[in-house]
């Protein structure tokens, strides 16, 4: 039996009050001077004995009521101390060893010490004990399942290596919780061997180990650390003579207590050191190095910043990819009879865009050659009739990932069975009599209209449409906009890896006032970006991200490579990924759908069917937070992680009961029963004493003191 608020037990002294008062009453001497004791002496002697307690049970009832109420306030609970129970427990143990292998463990000899600690735990296992080895960084990996074989455990520890991942304790602790919960062993123990980086724990995460389980943190952290990290790289682009020139600036952080003086910081491009700068950084300070601008003429050029070596070499290098920022190439096909003014609105607004830049070429629909599609990201068919050959060319173009925008006017672009037309085309609707129709519905969930969700970003309602074609979309097509009469205005269809959007009215202003409307420019920019699958390329990724085949394909489309009359079909694209460690993995159709970017360095993706062009490169860097080596005291960390607990005198060792006394007490709620019992006792006492008092005058303390009533 324990008490949550034992200081309330002081109140038990209150039970002495009735007895004390009774004693006081007994000892009190009233002296009354009386004229004569003539009659008093005739009455049989009334002694103090008469003042004995007449109703023991009434007094006991009162004492019990007081004691019950006091006990209720002290919040009692029954518990078997899990730590003590675990200590007393004998028999086989279930042990889970959580070994941190995050990038920060590569600091100095942390990893070797962690391995030693893990081996110590394994050596301490008894013959019946069973252990599970869990290696974790940002995710846990069950390296060795529960086994009594010390040899396999030791071997697994020897083979384990520091990863590039960030530290996250919660998933590993949850795995340990799960393992221990499922175990039927009487003793359950977890050992957490780590450098206890502050960044590895989010406050809102809380772990509850099964009752009786203990967790012992073993810290390999050092109080004083010194480390220089390349934290970031920024690329400033400029165009010079049609070439992209990039100025590279590297940001560095000195996380040590000593200054960094004249440390060389090198820029490597394509494996060659192209520039080097010295840097001087104050203790716990930051600095930056800017290199001369370099011309980027080719895509997927590997580049990195390196600054020698120190205790944590992993963050001394920063990898990134240099690619020229190519404009999005757009081919506008219009009817042979149409003059340049037919597409003037479109070419003008696309020419105004800077990010991305668009280059447009206007061509007659009847004279399209495969070469004209080479390097294109987007083709716009502006109210033109296409030949069957052109239609086939465009279909192949879209399937490879190209974008197609169909502006429908009087002419049908192709036959009714053309796979790129999203729906079946009907006759034109003339809304002149009704002074034109308007757009009645926009799908704001679409990336095209997403930016216009906020009414302040523009309004499409006052666009007037005097005429449009009816288009009945297929069930698989997606209607992005409708007119006020319900007719489809914008319909999207996915074909292969590409996208087709049909606009059922013209873009030259003949059937509507859209080109003269203020929203025309942003609308066309969004449409063109969407169809060209334009995505701002990221020079690097962080460890832990996932990558699928769409990433290199989108890069191809962006660079206009989709139109090259290759044989590869982007939707069914397949590639081979080479990891920084040199492992090859098939990605896409026939291989793994996604690949985790777990290693620091460059992942090369070579798509099949794209010729001998450079492979697609993905630079991967470790999480910047992993460079922050500041650690929590192990006990403090576990107290926070497991919702508060007790620290054992062993310093770094803490045995943590899962249920705190408050939890156990709350669960049992004995106080409630005690309080009710106390109140019932008080009620009974007041009823009984009132009756007795009325009958023969009992005093308040269970003693019969005469006719007080």
């Amino acid at each position, binding site marked *: 039996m324990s008490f949550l608020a034992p200081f309330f037990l002081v109140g038990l002294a209150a039970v002495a009050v009735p007895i004390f008062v009774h004693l006081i009453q007994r000892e009190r001497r009233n002296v009354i001077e009386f*004229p*004569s004791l003539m009659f008093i*002496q005739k009455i049989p002697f009334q002694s103090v004995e008469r*003042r004995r307690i007449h109703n023991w049970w009434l007094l006991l009832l009162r004492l019990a009521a007081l004691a019950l109420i006091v006990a209720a306030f002290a919040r009692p609970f029954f518990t078997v101390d899990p730590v003590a129970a675990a200590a007393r427990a004998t028999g086989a143990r279930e042990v889970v060893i959580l070994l941190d292998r995050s990038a920060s463990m590569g600091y100095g000899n942390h990893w070797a010490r962690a391995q030693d600690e893990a081996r110590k735990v394994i050596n301490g296992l008894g013959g019946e004990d069973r252990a599970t080895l869990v290696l974790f960084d940002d995710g846990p990996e069950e390296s060795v399942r529960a086994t009594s074989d010390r040899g396999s455990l030791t071997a697994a520890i020897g083979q384990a290596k520091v990863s590039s991942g960030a530290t996250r304790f919660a998933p590993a602790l949850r795995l340990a919780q799960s393992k221990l919960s499922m175990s039927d062993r009487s003793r359950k123990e977890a050992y957490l061997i780590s450098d206890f980086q502050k960044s590895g724990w989010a406050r809102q995460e809380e772990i509850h180990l099964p009752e009786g389980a203990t967790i012992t943190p073993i810290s390999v952290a050092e109080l004083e650390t010194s480390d220089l990290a390349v934290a970031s790289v920024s690329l400033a682009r400029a165009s010079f003579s049609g070439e992209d020139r990039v100025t590279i600036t590297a940001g560095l952080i000195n996380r040590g207590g000593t200054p960094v003086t004249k440390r060389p910081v090198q820029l490597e491009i394509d494996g060659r050191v192209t520039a080097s700068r010295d840097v001087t950084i104050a203790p716990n300070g930051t600095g930056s190095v800017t290199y001369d601008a370099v011309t980027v003429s080719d895509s997927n050029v590997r580049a990195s910043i390196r600054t020698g070596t120190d205790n944590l070499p992993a963050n001394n290098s920063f990898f990134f990819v240099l690619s020229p920022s190519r404009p999005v190439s757009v081919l506008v096909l219009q009817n042979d009879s149409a003059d340049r003014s037919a597409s003037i609105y479109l070419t003008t607004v696309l020419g105004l865009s800077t990010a991305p830049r668009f280059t447009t070429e206007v061509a007659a629909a009847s004279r399209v050659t495969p070469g004209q599609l080479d390097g294109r990201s987007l083709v716009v068919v502006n109210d033109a009739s296409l030949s069957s050959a052109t239609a086939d060319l465009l279909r192949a173009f879209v399937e490879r990932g190209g974008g197609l925008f169909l502006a429908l006017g009087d002419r049908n672009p192709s036959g009714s069975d053309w796979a790129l037309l999203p729906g079946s085309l009907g006759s034109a609707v003339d809304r002149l009599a009704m002074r034109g129709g308007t757009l009645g519905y926009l799908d704001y969930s679409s990336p095209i209209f997403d930016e216009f969700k906020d009414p302040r970003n523009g309004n499409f309602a006052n666009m007037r449409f005097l005429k449009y074609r009816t288009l009945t979309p297929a069930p698989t097509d997606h209607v992005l906009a409708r007119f006020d009469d319900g007719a489809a205005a914008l319909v999207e269809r996915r074909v292969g890896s590409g996208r087709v959007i049909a606009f059922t009215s013209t873009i030259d202003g003949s059937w509507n006032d859209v080109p003269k409307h203020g929203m025309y420019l942003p609308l066309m920019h969004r449409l063109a970006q969407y169809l060209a699958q334009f995505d701002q390329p990221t020079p690097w990724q962080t460890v832990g991200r996932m990558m699928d085949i769409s990433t290199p394909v989108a890069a191809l489309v962006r660079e206009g490579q989709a139109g090259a009359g290759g044989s590869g079909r982007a939707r069914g694209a397949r590639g081979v990924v080479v990891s920084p460690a040199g492992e090859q993995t098939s990605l896409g159709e026939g291989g793994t759908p996604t690949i985790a970017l777990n290693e620091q360095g460059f992942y090369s993706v070579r798509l099949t069917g794209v010729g001998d062009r450079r492979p697609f490169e993905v630079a991967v860097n470790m999480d910047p937070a992993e460079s922050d080596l500041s650690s929590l005291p192990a006990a403090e960390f576990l107290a926070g992680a497991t919702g508060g607990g007790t620290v054992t005198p062993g310093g770094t060792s803490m045995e943590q009961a899962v249920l705190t006394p408050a939890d156990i007490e709350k669960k049992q709620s004995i106080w409630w029963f005690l309080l009710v019992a106390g109140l019932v006792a008080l009620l009974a006492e007041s009823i009984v004493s009132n009756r007795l008092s009325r009958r023969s005058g009992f005093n308040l303390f269970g003693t*019969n003191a*005469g006719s007080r009533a």
Partner: protein
Amino acid sequence: MDTHLIPGARFVDPKVLSRVKDLELLAKSVVDGFINGLHRAPYFGASIDFAEHRGYVAGDDIRRVDWRLYARTDRYYIKQYEADTNANLSVLVDVSKSMAFASQGVSKLEYGKFLAACIAYLSHRQRDRVGIVTFDSEIVAHVPPSAKHFNVLLHTLDRAVPERPGRLLANLSLLAEHFKRRSIVALISDLYESPEALVEVLKPYAFLGNDLVVFHVLDPAEIEFPYNEPSRFVDLESGEEVPVVPEGFADQYRKLMQEHISALRTKCTDARIDYVLLDTSKPLDEALFHYLGNRERLMRVR
């Protein structure tokens, strides 16, 4: 609202009287108020009234011969008159320590003093001779009855303090020998003695032709015994202590007290002694009634 038996009784509330220090003024206020409230003439009047004639016998004082009658009848007759109406009043006041008991502001002795003063004043106004005897364990003061002793009586009363334990029976026996002449004897005491012994002592007073009125003065606390706390009771006279738990005791005490009172009343009545129980919380009118009743009876005696 005046709840007293007679209108004048409002002048005799003992608590009011206790504030009056001058006993004469006190007695005058009480008695005048009381008498006026009666609305009937007091039994004052001629002190020498002719009653009858009787034949002369040798030895009679010849001055009492009715010579006029002799002239008419030629025989000697002696004139007889009504008896002397000037009675003796002797007040016997118990001033033992037990009389000092007071539960409500007025002690039994004070009450007794008021009573003595009042009846003395009444008698004095009727030209009675008044005297007083105070006693505790022995005779403290003895003022023989005299028409001139009223002030001495008041002075004696004023000086009376309860200092010593009392010996009621012994003193009464001793005093009985002093009342040769018929007197009204008023005994004021708390009578903590056996009724039998007391009445035996009082009987000689009656035998001598005295008219005895026993005023039994008791404090209400002595009658009601209102105590309920466990206490030690100390005898005022002897200093003896008795621990008492009043539980169940009070009833027995009250019963004993009532038996004592009724025994006194019965035995006094049997011995032709007037017994008046006085409660110090009650006005004096009852006591005065009894006294006047006795006084009237005495006046009719020749």
